[in-house]
Structures are given as structure tokens and as C-alpha cells.
């Protein structure tokens, strides 16, 4: 880790410390009785400490640490997705291919730096292979729907998530050896946008922005959160290859993608009749609940950086 990374993590630690103090103060003021919003807020802050710690450990191990970390993220996300979208017995071979072939091979290709294959492996080869495998079962019931579910889960949970460690493979002139910071910037901006949208929504939220898809999202939360997160992204331009205005535009792009990603993933949850994808992160829900915005922001960010900077 270089000085930039260390000061970044120190800054995040200070921010979390501030959040923890505020959370404890709110709890103290509200009294000993359970309070749904404040207790959930504190659970979320505690989980953030753990998540930052895990990311920090991965960063210590550099490129391979990050690849292993996101392999795990993809695995948990894929498992949550496939658990919630029912498939039939004939889909077993396709699911085996998704968990035991597509997932490891995608991350192996990224570790091998093989852009030509990791960028098309799932959208081309697995796209065609999965329905072929499903057809062997001879079960035509809701065939297209079932085949699409496996493909969609794989695209979101593996392909899109793997765009984050794929940032390590980019050769950006003048930015050599600092690609980890690009990952840190992306995760930080997208996640802080989620947090600030939540905070602004809780403080000032009045008008619902998508009452059917995600009743907790408000216009005030959206505007306030995205504006602040974009400003933070721009102010952090010193850890990126971007200048101030480029960083602001990039931040706005990933924040917008992240917001829409949250809406799309929420629509799927609502259709399945659940509030959260899973239960592994205390206070947040499942892995996909935390990663939904990153899933949509990361591939666009990867290709923008690759096209204009690498």
C-alpha cells in the first residue's frame, strides 16, 4: 500500500468513527427501548467497519487479494440470486456450469489479464452454452424464462461484479502501479452515494421517486445524495487519473448507474415478494443488497476508463 491508499483508508476510518459516535449519541438520546431506524443505522455502521476491514486486508495482498475478494462477492451474490429465482430440475447442469465453471474461469481470466476472453466469455460463450445444457433435460416448461434467469444471474453477479477487479488489468499511462486506487475510488463513490441518499432521504425525504419499485427512495434523497457523492468523487480526483471535472463527470455517471441499478434490483426483489436478497450483512440484507449499485456502475466505469484513459 502506498501513502495515497493509507491516507484514503485513514480518512474512511475517521468517517466511520464519526458515524459510530453519531449512531451511539442517537441511541443514547432515544433511550434504552428498541428503535427500528436507529438500531438498523448502528447495525449498518458496524457492518461497514467489517466491510472496510475486509477490503483493506484484500488491498494488502494487491491484485490477487482483490481478485479473491471479488470472487467471494460474486459467489455470494450469485447464490442469493439463484436462490430467489426458482429453477426446475432440468436446470441443474446449467447451474453447475454457472457456479463451478463460469465463476472460477471468469476470475482466472482476469488474473491472467486476458481481456479478449474475459470481456466476452459470459456474454457470448456462456450465453449460448447455458440454454444448450438446460435443453438436455428435455423439460420445456417456461424454458425461456428459466434460461434467462440463469444468464441474467450470471451477468449481474459474476460478469458485472468482475468488472471491479478487471480495473487491475488496465494500463493507464502515468498511473502505473496505482490501479488499486481506481477500485477504491469507484467503490467509495458508489457506496457513499448509497449512504448519502439514505441519509438525505431520512432527513429531508418527502416525494417518493419510485413508489412501486422502491418505496424508501425519495427525490430529496436522490438529488442530495448524488450531488454530494459527485462532489466527493471530484474532490478525490488526486487518487485517480482524472482531473477535477473529469472525476466529477465520472462520479455522476457511476452514481446515476448505481441509482438505476438499485431500482432494477429492487423491482426483481419486489416481484419475488422479498425485502432483501439475503441476510449475510447485518443491517444491510444480503450481498446483492449492498452490491446492486456497484453491479450497474462497475462495467460502465471499466469501459469508460479503458476507452478514454488506457
Amino acid at each position, binding site marked *: 500500500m502506498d501513502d495515497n491508499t493509507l491516507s484514503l483508508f485513514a480518512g474512511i476510518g475517521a468517517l466511520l468513527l464519526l458515524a459510530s459516535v453519531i449512531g451511539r449519541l442517537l441511541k443514547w438520546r432515544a433511550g434504552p427501548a428498541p428503535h427500528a431506524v436507529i438500531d438498523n443505522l448502528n447495525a449498518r455502521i458496524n457492518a461497514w467497519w467489517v466491510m472496510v476491514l475486509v477490503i483493506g486486508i484484500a488491498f494488502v495482498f494487491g491484485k490477487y487479494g482483490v481478485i479473491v475478494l471479488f470472487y467471494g462477492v460474486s*459467489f455470494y451474490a450469485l*447464490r*442469493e440470486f*439463484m*436462490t430467489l429465482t426458482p*429453477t426446475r*430440475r432440468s436446470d441443474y447442469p446449467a447451474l*453447475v456450469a454457472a457456479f463451478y465453471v463460469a465463476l472460477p474461469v471468469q476470475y482466472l481470466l482476469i488474473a491472467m489479464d486476458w481481456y479478449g476472453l474475459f470481456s466476452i466469455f459470459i456474454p457470448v460463450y456462456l450465453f449460448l452454452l447455458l440454454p444448450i445444457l438446460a435443453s438436455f433435460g428435455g423439460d420445456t416448461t417456461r424454458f425461456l424464462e428459466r434460461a434467462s434467469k440463469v444468464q441474467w444471474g450470471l451477468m449481474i453477479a459474476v460478469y458485472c461484479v468482475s468488472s471491479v477487479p478487471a480495473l487491475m488489468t488496465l494500463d493507464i499511462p502515468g498511473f502505473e502501479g496505482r490501479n488499486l486506487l481506481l477500485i477504491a475510488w469507484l467503490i467509495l463513490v458508489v457506496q457513499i452515494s448509497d449512504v448519502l441518499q439514505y441519509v438525505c432521504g431520512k432527513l429531508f425525504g418527502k416525494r417518493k421517486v419510485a413508489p412501486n419499485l422502491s418505496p424508501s427512495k425519495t427525490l430529496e434523497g436522490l438529488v442530495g445524495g448524488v450531488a454530494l457523492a459527485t462532489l466527493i468523487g471530484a474532490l478525490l480526483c488526486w487518487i485517480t487519473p482524472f482531473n477535477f471535472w473529469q472525476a466529477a463527470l465520472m462520479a455522476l455517471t457511476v452514481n446515476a448507474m448505481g441509482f438505476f441499478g438499485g431500482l432494477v434490483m429492487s423491482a426483481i426483489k419486489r416481484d419475488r415478494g422479498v425485502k432483501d436478497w439475503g*441476510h449475510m450483512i447485518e443491517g444491510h440484507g444480503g450481498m446483492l443488497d449492498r452490491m446492486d449499485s456497484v453491479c450497474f456502475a462497475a462495467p460502465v466505469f471499466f469501459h469508460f476508463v479503458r476507452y478514454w484513459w488506457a
Partner: protein
Amino acid sequence: MLATLTAFVITSAARLITGARALWLGCTPLPVQRLYFANHSSHGDFVLLWASLPEPLRKRTRPVAGADYWAKPGIRDFLIRKVFNGILIERQRTEGQGSPLQPILEAVAQGDSLIFFPEGTRNLGDEPLMPFRSGLFHLAAANPEVELVPVWIANLNRVMPKGRALPLPLLCTLSFGEPLNLHADESKQAFLQRASQALLNLAPKDA
């Protein structure tokens, strides 16, 4: 020693692969004598249910399994007798034998809790639950003091479909419902219907 170690490895692996989550909806995990009755779609069912019980309860809870499958010398025999401390019953009734439920009644008399699959065999069809066989009724009638707890095991049939060796790492949930007892003057048919409905009510909708 070997049995304890095997039990630890199997329950840890089952929980790791399936992320098993126990939802105690209708009762709490208390050390009282109970008969857990569950839907049955995979050989892993009783392992998962057993693994999701807290340690002190697990020691006193014994799965009821078919002798035709498990009473084979070697690994199966070791697993069911030494590791799971199971109760083997003859599923095919033959002339000249006593009640096939006799070994279960003896275990209940000792104070053991049970894991029991009232469908009698694995359900491999599209229906969520097959009609219950009469065993549950006879056990309920003979042991009115034992709580009958319905447990819905969700998703395990997708984790380990019939005839497949490699488990899929999907998430399983076990929903523990409200205990029921046989009412006075309740007919066998009515009781089995009520028990079956209590179990079905725990199933996730549209699964």
C-alpha cells in the same frame, strides 16, 4: 471420537454449503421433548434439520430413517448408528413382525426427541407435499405429551436433486412452526390433514 468428528464435519459442511438459516417462527429452541416432522425431498433433509438445531438439543434428537436404505454394512451403517444416532424402521411391513413404529416408541419412552418424515419417502414430484402416512398419527396418539413441531425445509431439493452427486451452493431455510397436538376425538384423517396443512403453511409462497 471418530463419530463426534464426523458429525462436526458433516454439520459444518451442510451449513456452509446451504447457508442454512433456522427460522423459529412458532416456537423457540427449548430442550423439551419434541417430534420434528418435515417435508422430505432429499437424503440431506435430516442432516440439515439436525445441523440447524442448537448443540444441546441435537444430542437428544434422533432422526428416523428407513432401514432398507441405511442398514447396509459400512459407511451408511456407521453414519446412521454412530454419527446421527438414528432410529431405523422397516418401511415395508412384513407378516409376523410387531409394529414398525416399535423402535420409535422405545426411543420416545427414553425421552429422546425425533426427526420424522411423515410422507414416508422422498417426494420427487412437482407437488409440494405428498399425503402423510399414518405413522405420525399413531405416534401422536401414543405420546400426547410430546410436542409435534412442523418444519418446512426450503430449497434443499434444488441443492441436491435426485441422482446428482455435486451439491449446488444455494441457500436453504428451515421454518419451525407452532407445535401441535392430537385433539381428543380427532380422527386419523382429520389429524393428518391438519398436520399436513400446518407444514404447508410454512412453505414459501410460489416456490
